[in-house]
């Protein structure tokens, strides 16, 4: 049972345009969400996070939006750069103190120069 779903396995975006990566979840107990980025042959690196009490969090070119009623979050990258080409994972936890982070299956983003 995949509780965190990234339905687009891949996405291609022109350099300079906006990249939008989507994530849906089924567990209404999730209350904190994170995005990680992964390059080939490397471990994931943290990108941005959002608490369920917020609907938006911004960090430079990266913005995460959370729609609790739809159980949906999205990561916006503006403008997209070639170095953004990577696999992006969204992840969720049910409450603080619970160390079990549930990851989505990932979306491979390719930025076209």
């Amino acid at each position, binding site marked *: 049972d995949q509780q965190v779903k990234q339905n687009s396995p891949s996405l291609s975006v022109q350099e300079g345009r906006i990249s939008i990566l989507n994530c849906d979840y089924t567990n209404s107990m999730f209350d904190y969400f994170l995005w990680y980025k992964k390059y080939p042959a490397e*471990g994931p690196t943290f990108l941005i996070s959002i608490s369920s009490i917020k609907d938006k969090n911004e960090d430079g070119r990266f913005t995460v939006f959370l729609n609790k009623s739809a159980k949906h979050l999205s990561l916006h990258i503006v403008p997209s750069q070639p170095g953004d080409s990577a696999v992006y*994972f969204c992840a969720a936890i049910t409450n603080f103190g619970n*160390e079990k*982070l549930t990851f989505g299956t990932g979306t491979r983003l390719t930025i076209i120069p």
Partner: protein
Amino acid sequence: NAGVTQTPKFRVLKTGQSMTLLCAQDMNHEYMYWYRQDPGMGLRLIHYSVGEGTTAKGEVPDGYNVSRLKKQNFLLGLESAAPSQTSVYFCASTKGGVQNEQYFGPGTRLTVT
């Protein structure tokens, strides 16, 4: 700072053999984790530790054991390897729980034949 390192980077085992994966971090982090990543799936938590001398089960603990004898090291053991344990294994650490940024190692690619 080396961050999080994993040893070995690659390993091929025969069914029934045993091995230990070593994870070391030099950031004085309390929390450490072992994940596995399989094709088409997100990272799944195997075991974790919230401090020296403590360990706990994650989502997929069967067939694995762990030890955290020193704060900086987290060992993952396979007592009797099975082909289903063919995977890429990632270790991670964080200062204060998964709601904070996790720092990942580069991964260990394990093949069990």
